[in-house]
Protein backbone atom coordinates (compact mmCIF):
# COMPACT_ATOMS: atom_id res chain seq x y z
CA UNK A 1 0.00 0.00 0.00
CA UNK A 2 1.64 3.23 -1.11
CA UNK A 3 1.86 6.10 1.34
CA UNK A 4 -0.09 9.31 1.00
CA UNK A 5 1.56 11.98 -1.12
CA UNK A 6 2.51 14.93 1.03
CA UNK A 7 2.33 18.43 -0.39
CA UNK A 8 2.53 21.01 2.36
CA UNK A 9 2.42 24.78 2.32
CA UNK A 10 5.56 26.75 3.01
CA UNK A 11 3.69 28.71 5.70
CA UNK A 12 3.30 25.45 7.63
CA UNK A 13 7.00 24.73 7.56
CA UNK A 14 8.23 23.26 10.82
CA UNK A 15 10.86 24.93 12.93
CA UNK A 16 13.94 22.74 12.79
CA UNK A 17 15.69 24.28 15.75
CA UNK A 18 16.47 21.85 18.57
CA UNK A 19 17.63 24.30 21.21
CA UNK A 20 16.42 23.20 24.65
CA UNK A 21 16.51 26.67 26.20
CA UNK A 22 20.25 26.45 26.31
CA UNK A 23 22.69 29.13 25.27
CA UNK A 24 23.62 28.96 21.62
CA UNK A 25 26.66 30.66 20.18
CA UNK A 26 25.82 33.83 18.29
CA UNK A 27 25.88 33.42 14.54
CA UNK A 28 27.44 36.34 12.69
CA UNK A 29 26.19 37.27 9.26
CA UNK A 30 28.47 38.66 6.55
CA UNK A 31 29.15 42.35 7.15
CA UNK A 32 28.19 42.22 10.80
CA UNK A 33 30.56 44.02 13.16
CA UNK A 34 32.39 41.64 15.48
CA UNK A 35 34.28 44.25 17.41
CA UNK A 36 35.03 47.94 17.08
CA UNK A 37 38.21 47.74 19.11
CA UNK A 38 41.32 47.50 17.01
CA UNK A 39 43.56 45.51 19.31
CA UNK A 40 42.48 42.26 17.67
CA UNK A 41 44.03 40.48 14.75
CA UNK A 42 42.12 39.64 11.61
CA UNK A 43 41.68 35.87 11.10
CA UNK A 44 39.90 33.74 8.51
CA UNK A 45 36.37 34.80 7.65
CA UNK A 46 36.81 38.40 8.78
CA UNK A 47 37.79 41.72 7.24
CA UNK A 48 38.53 45.20 8.44
CA UNK A 49 36.33 48.11 7.49
CA UNK A 50 36.84 51.63 8.86
CA UNK A 51 38.66 50.34 11.88
CA UNK A 52 35.98 47.75 12.69
CA UNK A 53 36.41 44.02 12.43
CA UNK A 54 33.54 42.45 10.43
CA UNK A 55 32.54 38.94 9.48
CA UNK A 56 32.84 37.97 5.82
CA UNK A 57 31.03 34.63 6.19
CA UNK A 58 28.01 33.41 8.15
CA UNK A 59 29.24 31.47 11.13
CA UNK A 60 30.41 31.43 14.72
CA UNK A 61 33.23 33.46 16.19
CA UNK A 62 36.37 31.77 17.38
CA UNK A 63 39.10 33.49 19.31
CA UNK A 64 42.67 32.45 20.05
CA UNK A 65 44.33 35.13 22.18
CA UNK A 66 44.12 38.20 19.97
CA UNK A 67 43.21 36.42 16.78
CA UNK A 68 39.55 36.50 15.88
CA UNK A 69 38.21 34.30 13.12
CA UNK A 70 34.72 33.29 11.99
CA UNK A 71 34.13 29.65 11.19
CA UNK A 72 31.49 29.32 8.48
CA UNK A 73 28.48 27.06 8.99
CA UNK A 74 28.42 25.96 5.39
CA UNK A 75 31.54 25.82 3.34
CA UNK A 76 33.52 23.60 1.07
CA UNK A 77 35.88 21.20 2.73
CA UNK A 78 39.21 22.57 3.87
CA UNK A 79 41.45 19.57 4.20
CA UNK A 80 43.92 18.87 6.94
CA UNK A 81 46.61 16.21 7.00
CA UNK A 82 45.34 12.98 8.53
CA UNK A 83 41.65 13.56 7.81
CA UNK A 84 39.59 10.58 6.73
CA UNK A 85 37.65 11.39 3.59
CA UNK A 86 35.20 9.70 1.27
CA UNK A 87 35.54 10.77 -2.32
CA UNK A 88 34.47 9.99 -5.84
CA UNK A 89 36.87 9.47 -8.73
CA UNK A 90 36.24 12.05 -11.44
CA UNK A 91 39.16 11.49 -13.76
CA UNK A 92 41.88 8.95 -14.48
CA UNK A 93 45.12 10.60 -15.49
CA UNK A 94 48.67 9.45 -15.97
CA UNK A 95 49.98 8.20 -12.63
CA UNK A 96 47.13 9.78 -10.68
CA UNK A 97 43.40 9.82 -10.13
CA UNK A 98 41.42 12.99 -9.62
CA UNK A 99 38.98 12.73 -6.74
CA UNK A 100 35.96 14.88 -5.91
CA UNK A 101 36.16 15.46 -2.15
CA UNK A 102 33.83 18.43 -1.82
CA UNK A 103 36.81 20.81 -1.59
CA UNK A 104 37.39 23.77 -3.86
CA UNK A 105 39.81 21.87 -6.07
CA UNK A 106 39.77 18.23 -7.04
CA UNK A 107 42.12 16.15 -4.91
CA UNK A 108 44.81 13.90 -6.34
CA UNK A 109 45.39 10.26 -5.52
CA UNK A 110 48.77 9.22 -6.85
CA UNK A 111 49.34 5.74 -8.18
CA UNK A 112 52.33 5.55 -5.85
CA UNK A 113 50.15 6.17 -2.79
CA UNK A 114 47.80 3.22 -3.19
CA UNK A 115 48.31 -0.36 -2.17
CA UNK A 116 48.25 -2.38 -5.32
CA UNK A 117 47.03 -5.96 -5.21
CA UNK A 118 49.76 -8.49 -4.73
CA UNK A 119 51.98 -7.30 -1.96
CA UNK A 120 52.81 -4.00 -0.47
CA UNK A 121 56.37 -3.55 -1.64
CA UNK A 122 56.01 -3.69 -5.35
CA UNK A 123 57.51 -1.48 -7.96
CA UNK A 124 54.98 0.42 -9.99
CA UNK A 125 55.62 -0.45 -13.57
CA UNK A 126 54.34 1.00 -16.80
CA UNK A 127 51.82 -1.84 -16.94
CA UNK A 128 50.32 -0.60 -13.70
CA UNK A 129 49.85 2.81 -15.30
CA UNK A 130 47.99 1.19 -18.16
CA UNK A 131 45.87 -0.81 -15.74
CA UNK A 132 44.84 2.16 -13.61
CA UNK A 133 41.28 2.18 -14.84
CA UNK A 134 40.87 -1.44 -13.78
CA UNK A 135 41.70 -0.50 -10.20
CA UNK A 136 39.59 2.62 -9.97
CA UNK A 137 37.47 4.14 -12.67
CA UNK A 138 35.36 7.26 -12.99
CA UNK A 139 32.47 7.27 -10.55
CA UNK A 140 34.01 4.88 -8.06
CA UNK A 141 33.84 5.81 -4.40
CA UNK A 142 36.88 5.49 -2.20
CA UNK A 143 37.78 6.11 1.39
CA UNK A 144 41.19 7.64 1.88
CA UNK A 145 43.31 9.78 4.12
CA UNK A 146 44.72 13.22 3.44
CA UNK A 147 48.45 12.88 2.96
CA UNK A 148 49.39 16.41 2.10
CA UNK A 149 47.86 19.81 1.51
CA UNK A 150 49.33 21.87 -1.31
CA UNK A 151 49.76 25.61 -1.11
CA UNK A 152 46.67 26.23 -3.26
CA UNK A 153 44.52 24.12 -0.93
CA UNK A 154 44.41 21.05 -3.18
CA UNK A 155 44.75 17.76 -1.35
CA UNK A 156 46.92 14.76 -1.98
CA UNK A 157 45.40 11.51 -0.72
CA UNK A 158 46.68 8.08 0.13
CA UNK A 159 45.06 4.70 0.72
CA UNK A 160 48.11 2.99 2.20
CA UNK A 161 46.20 1.16 4.87
CA UNK A 162 43.93 -1.81 4.80
CA UNK A 163 41.06 0.31 6.04
CA UNK A 164 41.02 2.48 2.98
CA UNK A 165 40.14 1.60 -0.56
CA UNK A 166 37.23 1.17 -2.88
CA UNK A 167 33.76 1.12 -1.35
CA UNK A 168 31.24 -1.56 -2.15
CA UNK A 169 27.46 -1.57 -1.89
CA UNK A 170 25.88 1.11 0.22
CA UNK A 171 24.62 4.67 0.30
CA UNK A 172 26.42 8.00 0.18
CA UNK A 173 24.94 10.92 2.13
CA UNK A 174 26.31 14.43 1.68
CA UNK A 175 26.25 16.85 4.61
CA UNK A 176 28.10 20.07 5.48
CA UNK A 177 31.71 19.28 6.45
CA UNK A 178 31.35 21.42 9.58
CA UNK A 179 28.76 18.98 10.98
CA UNK A 180 31.12 16.01 11.11
CA UNK A 181 32.73 15.87 14.51
CA UNK A 182 36.45 15.13 14.52
CA UNK A 183 37.24 12.02 16.52
CA UNK A 184 39.87 9.34 16.85
CA UNK A 185 38.15 7.02 14.48
CA UNK A 186 35.81 7.79 11.65
CA UNK A 187 35.10 4.17 10.82
CA UNK A 188 32.25 2.95 12.97
CA UNK A 189 30.89 -0.57 13.07
CA UNK A 190 27.59 0.21 14.73
CA UNK A 191 26.08 -2.52 16.93
CA UNK A 192 22.80 -2.23 15.02
CA UNK A 193 24.27 -4.04 12.05
CA UNK A 194 25.71 -1.41 9.78
CA UNK A 195 28.96 0.40 9.20
CA UNK A 196 29.35 4.13 8.82
CA UNK A 197 32.33 6.02 7.49
CA UNK A 198 32.08 9.64 8.56
CA UNK A 199 34.29 11.45 6.08
CA UNK A 200 35.69 14.72 7.40
CA UNK A 201 34.72 16.24 4.06
CA UNK A 202 31.01 15.76 4.74
CA UNK A 203 30.57 12.63 2.65
CA UNK A 204 29.15 9.84 4.77
CA UNK A 205 29.15 6.27 3.62
CA UNK A 206 26.69 3.77 5.06
CA UNK A 207 27.02 0.07 4.31
CA UNK A 208 26.49 -3.33 5.82
CA UNK A 209 28.73 -4.37 8.68
CA UNK A 210 32.30 -5.01 7.72
CA UNK A 211 32.71 -8.34 9.48
CA UNK A 212 36.44 -8.65 9.58
CA UNK A 213 38.54 -5.65 8.72
CA UNK A 214 41.69 -7.77 8.81
CA UNK A 215 40.40 -9.77 5.93
CA UNK A 216 39.82 -6.81 3.67
CA UNK A 217 42.75 -6.11 1.43
CA UNK A 218 42.09 -2.41 1.05
CA UNK A 219 41.39 -3.65 -2.36
CA UNK A 220 39.73 -2.87 -5.57
CA UNK A 221 37.28 -5.71 -5.52
CA UNK A 222 33.55 -5.17 -5.40
CA UNK A 223 31.07 -7.91 -4.91
CA UNK A 224 28.24 -7.06 -7.27
CA UNK A 225 26.57 -10.45 -6.95
CA UNK A 226 25.78 -10.12 -3.28
CA UNK A 227 22.23 -9.01 -2.49
CA UNK A 228 21.91 -7.01 0.70
CA UNK A 229 19.13 -8.65 2.72
CA UNK A 230 15.96 -6.75 3.52
CA UNK A 231 16.70 -6.27 7.19
CA UNK A 232 20.12 -4.75 6.65
CA UNK A 233 18.70 -2.60 3.91
CA UNK A 234 16.15 -1.23 6.36
CA UNK A 235 18.90 -0.46 8.86
CA UNK A 236 20.89 1.38 6.21
CA UNK A 237 17.83 3.31 5.08
CA UNK A 238 16.98 4.24 8.65
CA UNK A 239 20.50 5.46 9.38
CA UNK A 240 20.43 7.47 6.18
CA UNK A 241 17.19 9.17 7.15
CA UNK A 242 18.42 9.74 10.72
CA UNK A 243 21.54 11.47 9.41
CA UNK A 244 19.33 13.60 7.17
CA UNK A 245 17.20 14.49 10.22
CA UNK A 246 20.22 15.46 12.31
CA UNK A 247 21.62 17.48 9.42
CA UNK A 248 18.35 19.32 8.97
CA UNK A 249 18.54 20.45 12.58
CA UNK A 250 22.28 21.25 12.26
CA UNK A 251 23.41 18.73 14.83
CA UNK A 252 26.90 17.31 15.05
CA UNK A 253 27.37 13.85 13.57
CA UNK A 254 29.36 11.21 15.42
CA UNK A 255 28.77 7.62 16.45
CA UNK A 256 26.79 8.40 19.62
CA UNK A 257 24.50 10.96 18.02
CA UNK A 258 23.77 8.66 15.10
CA UNK A 259 23.12 5.72 17.40
CA UNK A 260 20.80 7.74 19.62
CA UNK A 261 18.94 9.11 16.64
CA UNK A 262 18.55 5.57 15.36
CA UNK A 263 17.10 4.38 18.65
CA UNK A 264 14.75 7.36 18.93
CA UNK A 265 13.59 6.86 15.36
CA UNK A 266 12.40 3.31 15.94
CA UNK A 267 8.85 4.46 16.63
CA UNK A 268 8.59 5.64 13.04
CA UNK A 269 8.76 3.51 9.95
CA UNK A 270 11.64 4.29 7.61
CA UNK A 271 9.62 6.19 4.98
CA UNK A 272 7.87 8.17 7.73
CA UNK A 273 11.27 9.60 8.62
CA UNK A 274 11.15 11.68 5.44
CA UNK A 275 8.34 13.79 6.90
CA UNK A 276 9.71 17.04 8.39
CA UNK A 277 7.80 16.72 11.70
CA UNK A 278 9.21 13.26 12.35
CA UNK A 279 12.70 14.45 11.45
CA UNK A 280 12.53 17.32 13.95
CA UNK A 281 11.08 15.03 16.59
CA UNK A 282 13.96 12.58 16.22
CA UNK A 283 16.47 15.44 16.33
CA UNK A 284 14.94 16.92 19.49
CA UNK A 285 14.84 13.57 21.28
CA UNK A 286 18.44 12.90 20.29
CA UNK A 287 19.52 16.33 21.49
CA UNK A 288 17.75 15.66 24.77
CA UNK A 289 19.53 12.37 25.31
CA UNK A 290 22.88 13.89 24.41
CA UNK A 291 22.41 16.70 26.91
CA UNK A 292 21.47 14.13 29.59
CA UNK A 293 24.75 12.42 28.81
CA UNK A 294 26.64 15.66 29.38
CA UNK A 295 25.00 16.22 32.77
CA UNK A 296 25.65 12.70 34.00
Amino acid at each position, binding site marked *: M*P*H*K*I*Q*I*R*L*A*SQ*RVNTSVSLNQRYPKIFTPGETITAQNEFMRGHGTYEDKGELKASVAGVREQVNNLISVRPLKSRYNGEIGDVIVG*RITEVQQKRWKVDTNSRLDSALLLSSVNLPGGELRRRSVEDQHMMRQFL*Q*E*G*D*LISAEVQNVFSDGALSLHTRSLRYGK*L*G*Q*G*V*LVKVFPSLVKRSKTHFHNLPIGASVILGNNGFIWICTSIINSEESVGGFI*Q*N*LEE*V*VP*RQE*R*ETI*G*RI*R*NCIAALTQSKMMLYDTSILYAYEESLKY*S*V*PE*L*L*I*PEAMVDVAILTQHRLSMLEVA
Partner: protein
Amino acid sequence: MALCEAEKTFVLHGVEENFRVDGREREDYRPMELETDIVSHAFGSARLRLANTDILVAVKIEVDVPFPESPHQGKIEFFVDCSANATPDFEGRGGEDLAVTISSTLSSAYSSSLAFDLRKLCILHGRKCWKLYVDILILECGGNLFDAVSLAVKAALWNTQVPFVKNINIDGNNVEINVADDLYACERLDVKKAPVMVTVCKIGDKCIVDPNAAEEQCSVGSVVVAVSGNKFSTVYQTGKGSLHPSTLIESLKLGFEVAKRLDEALWETLSQIQPDQDVGFLK
Protein backbone atom coordinates in the same frame (compact mmCIF):
# COMPACT_ATOMS: atom_id res chain seq x y z
CA MET B 1 27.54 12.91 -11.07
CA ALA B 2 28.41 9.36 -11.96
CA LEU B 3 27.64 6.41 -9.76
CA CYS B 4 29.86 3.40 -9.34
CA GLU B 5 28.64 -0.08 -10.23
CA ALA B 6 28.24 -1.16 -6.61
CA GLU B 7 25.99 1.80 -5.79
CA LYS B 8 23.90 1.08 -8.86
CA THR B 9 23.59 -2.53 -7.78
CA PHE B 10 22.45 -1.43 -4.35
CA VAL B 11 19.79 0.85 -5.83
CA LEU B 12 18.69 -1.85 -8.26
CA HIS B 13 18.29 -4.51 -5.58
CA GLY B 14 16.43 -2.00 -3.41
CA VAL B 15 13.92 -1.37 -6.17
CA GLU B 16 13.41 -5.09 -6.64
CA GLU B 17 12.93 -5.50 -2.89
CA ASN B 18 10.36 -2.64 -2.93
CA PHE B 19 12.47 -0.82 -0.36
CA ARG B 20 14.34 2.06 -1.91
CA VAL B 21 17.44 3.78 -0.59
CA ASP B 22 15.46 6.16 1.61
CA GLY B 23 12.89 3.56 2.62
CA ARG B 24 10.22 4.52 0.12
CA GLU B 25 8.19 1.98 -1.78
CA ARG B 26 8.15 2.03 -5.55
CA GLU B 27 5.05 4.21 -5.74
CA ASP B 28 5.94 6.65 -2.99
CA TYR B 29 6.72 10.32 -3.35
CA ARG B 30 9.02 12.43 -1.25
CA PRO B 31 7.28 15.19 0.71
CA MET B 32 6.90 18.44 -1.19
CA GLU B 33 6.58 22.05 -0.21
CA LEU B 34 4.48 24.54 -2.12
CA GLU B 35 3.96 28.29 -1.94
CA THR B 36 1.90 30.44 -4.24
CA ASP B 37 1.71 34.13 -5.03
CA ILE B 38 5.34 34.84 -4.23
CA VAL B 39 6.31 36.93 -7.26
CA SER B 40 4.48 40.21 -6.69
CA HIS B 41 4.76 41.58 -10.25
CA ALA B 42 3.48 38.41 -11.90
CA PHE B 43 -0.18 37.60 -12.46
CA GLY B 44 0.30 34.28 -10.77
CA SER B 45 3.24 32.40 -9.34
CA ALA B 46 4.21 29.30 -7.42
CA ARG B 47 7.29 27.70 -6.00
CA LEU B 48 7.57 23.97 -5.45
CA ARG B 49 10.31 22.15 -3.63
CA LEU B 50 10.55 18.39 -3.94
CA ALA B 51 13.52 17.25 -1.84
CA ASN B 52 16.35 18.99 -3.67
CA THR B 53 14.40 19.97 -6.75
CA ASP B 54 13.33 23.59 -6.62
CA ILE B 55 11.04 25.12 -9.23
CA LEU B 56 9.78 28.68 -9.51
CA VAL B 57 6.97 29.46 -11.94
CA ALA B 58 5.60 32.88 -12.84
CA VAL B 59 2.69 33.58 -15.18
CA LYS B 60 2.46 36.82 -17.13
CA ILE B 61 -0.43 37.93 -19.28
CA GLU B 62 -0.48 40.08 -22.40
CA VAL B 63 -3.07 41.00 -24.98
CA ASP B 64 -2.40 39.35 -28.33
CA VAL B 65 -4.04 38.50 -31.64
CA PRO B 66 -5.40 34.94 -31.88
CA PHE B 67 -4.03 32.52 -34.44
CA PRO B 68 -6.06 32.65 -37.68
CA GLU B 69 -6.75 28.90 -37.48
CA SER B 70 -8.18 29.19 -33.98
CA PRO B 71 -9.82 32.62 -33.81
CA HIS B 72 -11.81 31.80 -30.68
CA GLN B 73 -8.86 30.69 -28.56
CA GLY B 74 -6.26 32.37 -26.43
CA LYS B 75 -2.61 31.42 -26.33
CA ILE B 76 -0.33 29.80 -23.82
CA GLU B 77 3.42 29.62 -24.06
CA PHE B 78 5.91 27.82 -21.85
CA PHE B 79 9.47 28.88 -21.33
CA VAL B 80 11.89 26.89 -19.22
CA ASP B 81 15.12 28.35 -17.92
CA CYS B 82 17.64 25.89 -16.54
CA SER B 83 19.70 28.05 -14.26
CA ALA B 84 23.37 27.07 -13.94
CA ASN B 85 22.86 27.32 -10.19
CA ALA B 86 20.78 24.16 -10.40
CA THR B 87 23.58 21.89 -11.47
CA PRO B 88 26.94 22.54 -13.09
CA ASP B 89 25.74 20.56 -16.12
CA PHE B 90 23.50 23.47 -17.08
CA GLU B 91 26.42 25.83 -17.48
CA GLY B 92 26.67 27.58 -20.83
CA ARG B 93 24.25 25.90 -23.22
CA GLY B 94 24.15 22.67 -21.25
CA GLY B 95 20.58 23.01 -20.06
CA GLU B 96 19.09 24.10 -23.36
CA ASP B 97 18.11 20.67 -24.66
CA LEU B 98 16.41 19.77 -21.41
CA ALA B 99 14.65 23.15 -21.32
CA VAL B 100 13.30 22.68 -24.83
CA THR B 101 12.17 19.13 -24.00
CA ILE B 102 10.32 20.21 -20.88
CA SER B 103 8.64 23.18 -22.52
CA SER B 104 7.55 21.21 -25.59
CA THR B 105 6.21 18.39 -23.42
CA LEU B 106 4.28 20.93 -21.40
CA SER B 107 2.81 22.66 -24.43
CA SER B 108 1.76 19.37 -25.94
CA ALA B 109 0.20 18.35 -22.61
CA TYR B 110 -1.73 21.63 -22.45
CA SER B 111 -2.63 21.69 -26.15
CA SER B 112 -5.87 19.73 -25.85
CA SER B 113 -9.00 21.72 -25.07
CA LEU B 114 -10.02 18.92 -22.69
CA ALA B 115 -6.95 19.58 -20.60
CA PHE B 116 -6.94 23.34 -20.62
CA ASP B 117 -9.68 25.41 -22.21
CA LEU B 118 -8.09 28.24 -24.16
CA ARG B 119 -11.47 29.54 -25.32
CA LYS B 120 -11.92 31.28 -21.99
CA LEU B 121 -8.93 33.44 -22.85
CA CYS B 122 -10.57 34.87 -25.97
CA ILE B 123 -11.57 38.51 -25.64
CA LEU B 124 -12.91 39.32 -29.09
CA HIS B 125 -13.40 36.64 -31.70
CA GLY B 126 -10.48 36.65 -34.12
CA ARG B 127 -9.19 40.02 -32.95
CA LYS B 128 -8.03 39.96 -29.37
CA CYS B 129 -7.15 37.31 -26.84
CA TRP B 130 -5.08 36.89 -23.72
CA LYS B 131 -1.72 35.25 -24.05
CA LEU B 132 -0.27 33.48 -21.02
CA TYR B 133 3.49 33.40 -20.68
CA VAL B 134 4.42 30.65 -18.24
CA ASP B 135 8.03 31.15 -17.19
CA ILE B 136 9.60 28.22 -15.38
CA LEU B 137 12.87 28.64 -13.55
CA ILE B 138 14.72 25.58 -12.32
CA LEU B 139 16.59 26.71 -9.23
CA GLU B 140 17.88 23.38 -8.07
CA CYS B 141 17.94 19.98 -9.63
CA GLY B 142 17.54 16.87 -7.51
CA GLY B 143 15.81 14.52 -9.90
CA ASN B 144 12.25 14.17 -11.10
CA LEU B 145 12.05 17.51 -12.91
CA PHE B 146 8.98 16.81 -15.03
CA ASP B 147 6.69 16.02 -12.10
CA ALA B 148 7.82 18.99 -10.09
CA VAL B 149 7.51 21.35 -13.06
CA SER B 150 4.00 20.20 -13.92
CA LEU B 151 2.79 20.58 -10.33
CA ALA B 152 4.36 24.03 -10.02
CA VAL B 153 2.84 25.11 -13.34
CA LYS B 154 -0.57 23.89 -12.28
CA ALA B 155 -0.33 25.71 -8.96
CA ALA B 156 0.84 28.91 -10.67
CA LEU B 157 -2.03 28.76 -13.18
CA TRP B 158 -4.44 28.13 -10.31
CA ASN B 159 -3.04 31.26 -8.68
CA THR B 160 -3.24 33.33 -11.88
CA GLN B 161 -5.71 36.18 -11.97
CA VAL B 162 -6.85 37.33 -15.38
CA PRO B 163 -7.95 40.98 -15.42
CA PHE B 164 -11.63 41.57 -15.96
CA VAL B 165 -12.51 43.25 -19.25
CA LYS B 166 -14.96 46.08 -18.65
CA ASN B 167 -15.78 47.08 -22.20
CA ILE B 168 -14.44 46.80 -25.74
CA ASN B 169 -14.56 49.69 -28.17
CA ILE B 170 -14.37 48.78 -31.83
CA ASP B 171 -13.49 51.57 -34.19
CA GLY B 172 -12.90 50.16 -37.65
CA ASN B 173 -9.70 48.16 -37.37
CA ASN B 174 -8.86 49.52 -33.96
CA VAL B 175 -9.95 47.52 -30.98
CA GLU B 176 -9.66 49.18 -27.63
CA ILE B 177 -9.94 47.16 -24.46
CA ASN B 178 -10.77 48.67 -21.14
CA VAL B 179 -9.80 46.65 -18.12
CA ALA B 180 -11.67 47.06 -14.86
CA ASP B 181 -10.11 49.76 -12.66
CA ASP B 182 -10.40 47.69 -9.54
CA LEU B 183 -7.16 45.74 -9.12
CA TYR B 184 -8.96 42.89 -7.48
CA ALA B 185 -11.61 42.48 -10.15
CA CYS B 186 -10.10 39.41 -11.70
CA GLU B 187 -11.17 35.96 -12.65
CA ARG B 188 -9.39 32.76 -11.85
CA LEU B 189 -8.51 30.27 -14.53
CA ASP B 190 -10.14 26.89 -14.55
CA VAL B 191 -7.30 24.45 -13.98
CA LYS B 192 -9.24 21.54 -12.57
CA LYS B 193 -8.27 19.42 -15.56
CA ALA B 194 -4.78 20.83 -16.08
CA PRO B 195 -2.38 17.95 -16.68
CA VAL B 196 -0.15 16.47 -14.02
CA MET B 197 2.96 14.73 -15.22
CA VAL B 198 4.43 11.64 -13.66
CA THR B 199 7.80 10.22 -14.59
CA VAL B 200 7.74 6.46 -14.48
CA CYS B 201 11.29 5.27 -14.31
CA LYS B 202 12.30 1.77 -15.25
CA ILE B 203 15.01 0.29 -13.07
CA GLY B 204 15.81 -3.34 -13.65
CA ASP B 205 12.48 -5.04 -14.31
CA LYS B 206 10.44 -2.75 -12.10
CA CYS B 207 9.00 0.73 -12.52
CA ILE B 208 9.23 3.45 -9.89
CA VAL B 209 7.95 6.99 -9.57
CA ASP B 210 9.67 10.07 -8.16
CA PRO B 211 13.26 8.94 -8.78
CA ASN B 212 16.00 10.87 -7.04
CA ALA B 213 19.17 11.86 -8.86
CA ALA B 214 20.90 8.56 -8.10
CA GLU B 215 17.93 6.48 -9.23
CA GLU B 216 17.71 8.46 -12.46
CA GLN B 217 21.29 7.39 -13.15
CA CYS B 218 20.36 3.74 -12.77
CA SER B 219 17.38 3.79 -15.06
CA VAL B 220 17.54 2.58 -18.63
CA GLY B 221 14.59 4.63 -19.72
CA SER B 222 11.57 6.40 -18.42
CA VAL B 223 8.12 7.39 -19.56
CA VAL B 224 6.65 10.77 -18.73
CA VAL B 225 2.89 10.48 -18.50
CA ALA B 226 0.74 13.60 -18.49
CA VAL B 227 -2.72 12.90 -17.13
CA SER B 228 -5.57 15.37 -17.20
CA GLY B 229 -8.73 14.33 -15.44
CA ASN B 230 -9.30 10.76 -16.54
CA LYS B 231 -7.37 10.95 -19.78
CA PHE B 232 -3.81 10.86 -20.93
CA SER B 233 -2.84 14.09 -22.59
CA THR B 234 0.76 13.31 -23.48
CA VAL B 235 3.19 10.45 -23.23
CA TYR B 236 6.87 11.13 -23.69
CA GLN B 237 9.74 8.71 -23.45
CA THR B 238 13.19 9.71 -22.25
CA GLY B 239 16.44 7.83 -21.90
CA LYS B 240 18.38 5.55 -24.15
CA GLY B 241 16.64 2.26 -23.59
CA SER B 242 13.60 0.96 -25.38
CA LEU B 243 10.53 -0.40 -23.65
CA HIS B 244 8.74 -3.65 -24.24
CA PRO B 245 5.07 -3.08 -25.12
CA SER B 246 3.88 -4.84 -21.96
CA THR B 247 6.22 -2.73 -19.84
CA LEU B 248 4.92 0.38 -21.54
CA ILE B 249 1.33 -0.51 -20.75
CA GLU B 250 2.30 -1.34 -17.19
CA SER B 251 4.07 1.98 -16.71
CA LEU B 252 1.17 3.86 -18.28
CA LYS B 253 -1.17 2.23 -15.78
CA LEU B 254 1.15 3.02 -12.89
CA GLY B 255 1.58 6.60 -14.06
CA PHE B 256 -2.16 7.05 -14.39
CA GLU B 257 -2.85 5.83 -10.86
CA VAL B 258 -0.09 7.92 -9.34
CA ALA B 259 -1.10 11.02 -11.30
CA LYS B 260 -4.59 10.79 -9.86
CA ARG B 261 -3.22 10.58 -6.31
CA LEU B 262 -0.85 13.43 -7.03
CA ASP B 263 -3.63 15.59 -8.40
CA GLU B 264 -5.78 14.93 -5.34
CA ALA B 265 -2.91 15.85 -3.02
CA LEU B 266 -2.29 19.06 -4.94
CA TRP B 267 -5.94 20.08 -4.80
CA GLU B 268 -6.09 19.40 -1.11
CA THR B 269 -3.11 21.67 -0.56
CA LEU B 270 -4.39 24.40 -2.87
CA SER B 271 -7.73 24.42 -1.09
CA GLN B 272 -5.93 25.18 2.18
CA ILE B 273 -4.59 28.44 0.82
CA GLN B 274 -6.54 31.41 2.12
CA PRO B 275 -6.79 34.42 -0.17
CA ASP B 276 -5.07 36.91 2.16
CA GLN B 277 -2.60 34.53 3.66
CA ASP B 278 0.88 35.71 4.56
CA VAL B 279 3.30 34.76 1.86
CA GLY B 280 6.22 32.41 2.34
CA PHE B 281 7.71 30.72 5.33
CA LEU B 282 8.64 33.83 7.35
CA LYS B 283 6.03 34.09 10.04
